[in-house]
Structure formats: C-alpha cells, structure tokens
C-alpha cells in the first residue's frame, strides 16, 4: 500500500512538474519579451498558452539524430542522467504542511548531493558528442559547477546551524517557531546562495557552458529532437528545484497568511525566484571564464565561510 502511494505521488509530481516546466518556459519567454519591448509568444491559444506544448510536439516529431562518430551509449544516457537527479530531489521537498513525499532527516544533504549529479550528464553529453565546441562547453560547465557547488553548500550551512536540523520540514517549522524567515538573519547567505545557484543552473550571466555566440550551445550542440527536449527539461526542472529549495530555506516554505493555502504560498515564492533568473537573463551580458572562477574562489567562498563563522557566533551568543 505504501509503495503504491509513493509511486502514485511520484507520478503526480512528475506530471505537475511537466506542466510547471511548460509554463515556466512560457513565463520566461513572456517576461523576456516584455523586457525587450515585444510581445512574446501570442499565436497559440490565448496569450500563447499552448506555445510550449506546440514546441514540445515539434521536438517529439523530429528525426532522432545520433552523430556517426558519437559514443552511442554515453550519448543516449547523458540526457537521462541529467534529468533523473534534478527530478529525484523533489522527493524531499515539502509543498505544504501536509503535502510531501519523504520526511528525510538529512534532506539538505540529500538535495545537495543528488542535485550535483546533473553535471555528470553535462560532462557525458559534451564528451560523447565528439564535437569540439561541445567538449569545451562541458569542460567549462563542469569546472563552473564544481567551483560553485562549494559556496552553495557553505551558504546553506548557515541555515542549518541556526535551525539545528537538516530536515527541510524541520527548517520551515523552525522559521515558524521564531516567527522570522531566514532571509533576515541569513541575508548574506541568501545572496551567496542566489549567485551560486545561477552558476549551478548555467543561467545568464553565468551561462558559459551553453554560450550560443561562442560555443554554439555548448554541450548540447549535437542533440536534437527528444534528447534535446530532455536536456531542456532537466534544466528547467533543476531551476524549479533550486527555487523550491531556496523558498524552503530562506523564505519560510509554505508559511504565509492563512487566506491562501500553504502550497499556493510556496509556488508564489518560487515564482519570485524564477522571475529573478529570467530578469537577469534579459539584462546582463555573459561573464568571462576566468572572472567567473576568480569570483567564485576569491570572493564567494571566503564570504560564505565568514557567514558561517558569524552565524555560529550569533548562535552561541544569542542562545537561539
């Protein structure tokens, strides 16, 4: 019975996620469209509501091309390996007080550990395509993701120290108890998280691995049709997961005035993060590889360490 329930829940989350990704893409195109003095998609259905569906259908009907010189097995496996972890992390996320899949004690650790596996997909995709641009893209991607994984983890540690638990539900509960979202006592941590999350997601201004004007889309240059759709799906799923994680850690998860149910608050807060990603994409040029690395190692990591020290001192001093 338990197993059945879990499978059912997984399917529901997957379907919800597919819908979420569909409309996240539309949302992105609309937001960027408005910022670029144009309308964005508006031909398919009212306000272009069916645009992404049409796009996905088109991708599904495309010919499935595997380059002759590609490493077939790895080439086929890469998009799946990119998508699976970004979806698996949803197991520990708690959508509302009652709606969740697993109440895991080490939720934070699980999330960070599993989500960092997506870079395997990037590396394999770039390597197996047998394309120089893809290779450069995936090398960049892995270097970037490894470097920014560290400040990301360190920035989350501040929250863990304050709340004294790694359970994601526990963290939200704790924020409820002290009557304050962690964005206030952990503002520095929040900013570091936001920046390193963008780098983790390979989104602008840190979209070096897929820089279309330099590397012609980087690691997924050779992918087309359904496999390409899978990479895109993985990217947006991961974006949603990172937003949901940030919501849980810093914005009090499902907490909010009672006139709306918890899940609505959760999704609204997530949308704020999504909007920030899109906003940055419409505004900023791309950073340079060496600047990116320097910024990560010389600025973000020391700051994140400082944040941990300060948080620990406060924790002991204030007796929180």
């Amino acid at each position, binding site marked *: 019975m338990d197993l059945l329930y879990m499978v059912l829940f997984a399917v529901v989350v997957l379907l919800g996620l597919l819908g979420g990704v569909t409309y996240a893409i539309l949302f992105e195109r609309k937001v960027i469209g408005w910022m670029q003095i144009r309308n964005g998609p508006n031909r398919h259905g009212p306000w272009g509501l069916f645009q992404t569906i049409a796009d996905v259908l088109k991708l599904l009907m495309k010919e499935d091309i595997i380059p002759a010189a590609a490493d077939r097995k790895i080439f086929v496996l890469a998009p799946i390996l990119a998508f699976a972890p970004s979806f698996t992390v949803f197991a520990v996320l708690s959508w509302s007080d009652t709606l969740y899949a697993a109440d895991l004690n080490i939720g934070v650790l699980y999330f960070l550990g599993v989500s960092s596996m997506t870079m395997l997909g990037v590396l394999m995709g770039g390597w197996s395509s047998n394309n120089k641009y893809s290779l450069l893209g995936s090398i960049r991607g892995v270097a970037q993701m490894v470097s920014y994984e560290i400040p990301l983890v360190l920035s989350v540690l501040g929250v863990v120290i304050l709340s004294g638990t790694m359970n994601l539900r526990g963290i939200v509960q704790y924020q409820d108890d002290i009557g304050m979202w962690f964005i206030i006592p952990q503002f520095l941590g929040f900013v570091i998280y936001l920046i390193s999350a963008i780098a983790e997601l390979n989104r602008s201004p840190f979209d070096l691995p897929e820089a279309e004007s330099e590397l012609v889309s980087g690691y997924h240059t050779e992918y087309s049709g359904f496999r390409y759709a899978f990479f895109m799906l993985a990217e947006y799923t991961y974006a949603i997961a990172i937003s949901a994680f940030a919501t849980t850690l810093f914005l009090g998860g499902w907490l909010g005035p009672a006139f709306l149910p918890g899940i609505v608050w959760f999704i609204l807060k997530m949308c704020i993060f999504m909007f920030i990603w899109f906003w940055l994409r419409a505004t900023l*040029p791309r950073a340079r590889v060496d600047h990116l690395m320097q910024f990560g190692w010389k600025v973000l990591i020391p700051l994140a360490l400082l944040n941990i020290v300060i948080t620990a001192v406060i924790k002991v001093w204030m007796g929180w």
Partner: protein
Amino acid sequence: MSIKTETMTLNMGPQHPSTHGVFRLLVEVDGETITKAEPVMGYLHRGSEKLAENFLYTQFIPYTDRLDYLNAMTNNYVYCAAIEKLLEWEIPERADYLRVIVMELNRIASHLVWWGTYLLDIGALSPFLYAFRDRDICLDLLNEISGARMTFNYIRIGGVKWDAPEGWVDKVKEKVKELRENIAEYDTLVTGNEIFQARTIGVGKLTKEQVINWGISGPLARASGVNIDIRKEEPYSIYDRFDFNIPTREEGDVFARYKVRIAEMYESLKIIEQACEQIDEGEIIHKKGARIMMIKPPAGEAYTRAEASKGEIGVYAVSNGKNKPYRIKLRRPSFVNVSILQDLLIGENIQNLVAIFGSLDIVLGEVDA
C-alpha cells in the same frame, strides 16, 4: 612528471553565429587559449571589381550597395563621386545636402547594428532589440526617400535619384530628437554594467603603431588615438559646412571602440540637424546625370575616398573614354581592418576572441567583395 598535452584545431565558421556571415577562422587552442589564428575569407566573393568592367557606369551602383550592405549610402556616394570627378560635373547643392543627410542616417543605422550584435556576441540579449527598434527609425526614413531599406541605389552619378517627399525633412528633424533620447538610454542599459566593463576594458588592445602600420581606419583607429576622419581630413561633399567633432580615445581597447562609436552617433545626429536647417529647394541631379547612356567620362583616372561607418572607403576608377569603366578598384575598410585579427588574437581565450572579433565591426560583403 609532466603531462603531455596537445593543442586542438578549432574551425570557427564559415557557419558560426559570432562571425556574422561566412567568415572562417582557423584557431589552434591550448585548452581555451589561442596559440594561432588564421582568418580564411572569400566565401562571399562575387568579383565585384571585375563585374564593374562589364557594366555601364550607372549599372554598377547597385553592386556597391552590396559591399557593405549596412552602410550602402556611403558606398553609393564614393563610387559616384569618383565618376563625377572624372566627368568634372558640378553637383546641385540640394543633392549634396540630401546625400549628407542619408549618409549620416545610414551611419547611425550601421553603428546601431554593430551595437546590438556586439552585445549579443558577448551574451546580452536585450540590447539587440533596442538597437533594431532605433535602426528601424533610420531605415523607415531612408525607405521613404529611396524606396528601399538596405540596398538603396539612391545616390546617382550627378546627384540623387529622388527628391525628398513632402515633409520628409521636418520628419527627419523630429526623429533626430527621438534618436538622441533613445541612444542616451543605451548608456543606462549597458555602458555602466560591471560585467560588460570587465569584459571589454583592456581587452584586444591595438597600439597606435599597429593601427598605422596595418592601415587601419575608422572608429578602430580613432579608439587607438589616431585622429583620422576623412570628413575632416579632406572634406568631401559639403562636410566642411558643418560643425562637428571627431571623437577619439587613447586606450585602444574594445571599450574605447564602443565609446567612440556611441559618441559618433551623437555627432552624426548633429550633422543631420544642421543639414536639415541649411537645405534649400533646387535641382537634385545634374541635367546629364538622369540619362544613363550619356555618361562617358573622358579618358583618365580618379581616386575618391570617404568615411564609411567601418573606416576609409575608396574607389579608384580608370576610364578609357568608353561607356564602361576600364577598371574599378575598391578599397574596402572591413577587408583592411580584419587583417589585424591574426596578431590580435594570440594568447586570448575563446570568449575574448568573440569580444575582439565583434569589436572590429566587419561586414563580410565588404571583406570579400
């Protein structure tokens, strides 16, 4: 113990989004650092110079449109001016004013395309759309007077093809104000951006000596402190009647080129405004110019040069007294400017390659002719 590493040959182009056309760069990279760069061109070669020998004088004008198709008016002008020099014709004053107005409008449009696509190259999506919004203002005006948006074929030997439609000059005055406000917007959107400055300041430095030795001209030269602009140096048409400055900078890096081009747009707006004030009614073409078959320059040769948006464009025309040119030689600024690339790229990484290459502002139609 040392690890054995190999360099990799990366073939950029002819189909690559940041080459803006069919340009090919053979780069040897060590990781992402460039150790050797070899530009390969000629994918768009149409033999324009040879074609010219088989056409009547007027028939070659549309071919000049297709050299630097972003700045077709100046190309039209410099060819026509060479033939006019051979013919020793007097150009009606109104035609000269119309020529200046359309050439400067076209220069702004060309710089706007550069601005937008350059930022697209270094990863900012939005500026492109803002640039094209404003470029459209210029193109609409040019469309109204010449009937085409890019390949105008408007300036003719002896004058211009069409007179300005009613109210056109007033409309230009109005749009100049709008453009000035819009271009000021660009500074707030891009110029102060930290990432943009980090990527452009100190990158792709060109020294004064390099500029002179390689014969580089246009905004590229002026950004390296070489104050040369044919409009001031050797005022052609009626440029000596206007009050404008030549923006120069000393740094010679990509950011300096950016600033020079933005400043140049303001100067062009100033010229257009003055021209719109001074323009008078009158003839628009020399009485013989309207008749194509009549153009038979006396035997001789002439060289004219003009300041296009990319640099110094020149036409050397030789006539043997027949109705077709004996020889036309084109000095194409993009072709000359791009030759520095092989020296400029050594030691840079792939990302800087795009930033430097884009800053040269070349048009492949002109590189290959």
